[in-house]
């Protein structure tokens, strides 16, 4: 009855026309999605109460590419429609010309205590274009029940992962579980594949980068070729061929329906695979991604989002103050506890209340602090092109249309081509 009234009320409101609230002092775009959006809204409301200004929160497309193009459309026309933007870690280089230098609008020492790597990432030509808000890094999900059943250790190298996947996959299939696979990841030709492939490469000693910090093209090296060949060997062996078109959700779909032993994903999947309706609840654990070999190291690629202020904003100081508030210690702590968003302040990883809420922040601290950045800063405007060339090559290698050596060689040529145009 009550809910019926609520519906009727909202219908009437909709039909009667919801008059737009008085023009707000600021407009912020933060988080497209439910829980994230609510968390942001709550934070914004606290700032409103403190500062007495009004803020409108707008929702944007969930897909990062679409969100970026919308931002560019707005910024490109020099419009101040949005004051504060939530931007991906790979965007500062691209959007820098449209963003204010926060150093000039924030008190000195505003970035003290933040992860230095992210602050560096957000500094373009000496200007701090965004404040780190929350971070992200790839992790390995595994089925502890199955590893126990087959008496296997949690793999620390890719070779061990492949072997464990073989054993369990063969065993489970024999036992009648025909759709079972060893490993799922994100293999679609999109930004996520750049992230996955960079994780493979960076886990090998010296295999590391697509482009180094000086802008030199380093992708064509034997270690990288080895990493990619190994990954190509997984397809149709321990990974379904369909993985070549998987994004995060498809991978989670396979893993969460109990059809895979390992999955590479972001920490977001934790809450979902552990939810009450999940068929694998309490049978999952999270570990750092495997290393490339004995001398290698685990490498999760840096993800996460930052807050930036538009150059075309009418109230840049007010907007900067909002940014400072949202990225403050208290606010990040609240977000870590309520939404398990990874803080960008190392101190919070030792905070007891935070650790009680999200235990793996403690065990995976290393992964988050040493996350590998993508070459976005150095390639600037050309990063999307570089990433695109890279993930297309990796996709070709994974589909078996070229060998890793050939692929990387022609990729090197293509990157040279991109470089000579403008970077």
């Amino acid at each position, binding site marked *: 009855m009550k809910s019926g009234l609520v519906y009727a009320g909202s219908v009437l409101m909709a039909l009667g026309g919801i008059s737009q609230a008085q023009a707000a002092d600021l407009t912020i775009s933060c988080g497209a999605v439910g829980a994230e959006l609510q968390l942001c809204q709550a934070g914004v409301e606290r700032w409103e109460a403190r500062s007495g200004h009004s803020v409108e929160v707008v929702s944007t497309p969930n897909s990062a590419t679409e969100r970026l193009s*919308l931002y560019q459309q707005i910024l490109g026309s020099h419009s101040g429609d949005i004051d504060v933007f939530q931007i991906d870690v790979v965007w500062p280089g691209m959007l820098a010309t449209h963003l204010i230098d926060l150093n000039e609008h924030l008190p000195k020492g505003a970035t003290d205590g933040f992860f230095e790597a992210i602050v560096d990432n957000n500094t373009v030509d000496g200007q701090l274009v965004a404040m780190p808000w929350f971070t992200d890094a790839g992790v390995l999900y595994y089925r502890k029940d199955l590893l126990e059943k087959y008496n296997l250790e949690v793999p620390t190298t890719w070779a061990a992962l492949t072997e464990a996947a073989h054993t369990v996959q063969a065993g489970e299939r024999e036992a009648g579980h025909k759709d079972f696979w060893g490993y799922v990841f994100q293999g679609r030709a999109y930004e996520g594949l750049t992230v996955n492939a960079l994780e493979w490469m960076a886990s090998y000693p010296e295999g590391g980068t697509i482009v180094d910090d000086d802008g030199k093209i380093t992708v064509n090296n034997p270690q990288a070729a080895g990493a990619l060949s190994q990954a190509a060997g997984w397809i149709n062996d321990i990974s379904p061929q369909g993985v070549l078109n998987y994004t995060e959700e498809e991978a989670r779909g396979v893993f969460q329906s109990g059809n895979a032993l390992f999955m590479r994903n972001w920490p977001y999947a934790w*809450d979902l695979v552990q939810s009450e309706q999940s068929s694998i609840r309490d049978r999952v654990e999270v570990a750092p991604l495997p290393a490339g070999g004995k001398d290698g190291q685990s490498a999760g690629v840096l993800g996460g989002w930052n807050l930036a202020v538009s150059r075309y904003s009418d109230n840049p100081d007010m907007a900067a103050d909002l940014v400072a508030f949202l990225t403050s210690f208290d606010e990040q702590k609240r977000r870590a506890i309520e939404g398990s968003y990874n803080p960008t302040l190392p101190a919070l990883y030792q905070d007891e209340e935070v650790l009680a809420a999200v235990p793996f922040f403690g065990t995976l601290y290393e992964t988050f602090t040493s996350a590998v950045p993508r070459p976005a800063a150095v390639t600037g405007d050309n990063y999307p092109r570089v990433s695109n060339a890279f993930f297309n090559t990796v996709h070709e290698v994974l589909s078996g249309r070229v060998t890793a050596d050939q692929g990387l060689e022609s990729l090197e040529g293509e990157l040279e081509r991109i470089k000579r145009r403008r970077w």
Partner: protein
Amino acid sequence: MTLRTLKGIVLKIGFWVLVAVLMVYAIFPFYYAVVTSLKPSSELFQVSYWVDSVDFSNYAAVLSQPTFLAAIRNSVIVAVSVVLIALLLGLTAAWALGRVRFRGRTTVMMIVLGVSMFPQVAVLSGLFEVIRTLDLYNSPGGLILSYTIFTLPFTVWILTTFMRQLPDELEEAAIVDGASPWVTLTKVFMPLLWPAMATTGLLAFIAAWNEFLFALTFTLTDSQRTVPVAIALISGGSQYELPWGPIMAASVIVTVPLVVLVVIFQRRIVSGLTAGAVKG
């Protein structure tokens, strides 16, 4: 005789099999969307052909969002306005292009067709500037204006072809009576063109109702969004989670009115398009 009966039966069975196959091909995806929308999210990754237990929570979730209802209202406003404008401009243009001979007429026709030869994404930023200049950003006006870019061309072309095959005698009589072109158009042609207008109107309505890219780019706040954008922006719990159930529920909610509209207008569409396409 028996052979013939047998053949008749076989033919009849074959016919119904054909109908069944076509029906399945046409309806199944929609049916599957309905099934999915009635499932709780935990069963999302399991294949099922029908609904075991009906769960309306997705519908409740969608309908309880005031922004979704606002989006429906915006879509109705935009789509209806687009239809009215397209029909008005299309009708006057069709009279000029279909009934009057003048130099430059074919050029006009080709320009109109040429407008629909550009990819949408290419005109996006230019249109964005136009809309900002006219101060129509984040308002239904901007969408109504931009939607004419793809509704006008086919409205004009279809209405022109219709207009052409109306018999000349009608107009001659009007001219003899000294009627002005406007009177001729509204009093003589319009009543005869109702089927054509229903057809093009419906086509324009569906096009405007389903448009996504412009709507996403030219509106900003929830209160101004249209339905396809609202659906695309329905959110899951976190960045990567796809809220499939609510998306399907919302899609079903907005598709049903269109299906009803199509059913109501289908006779009109048929008789309408006929005249335009075939009659010489």
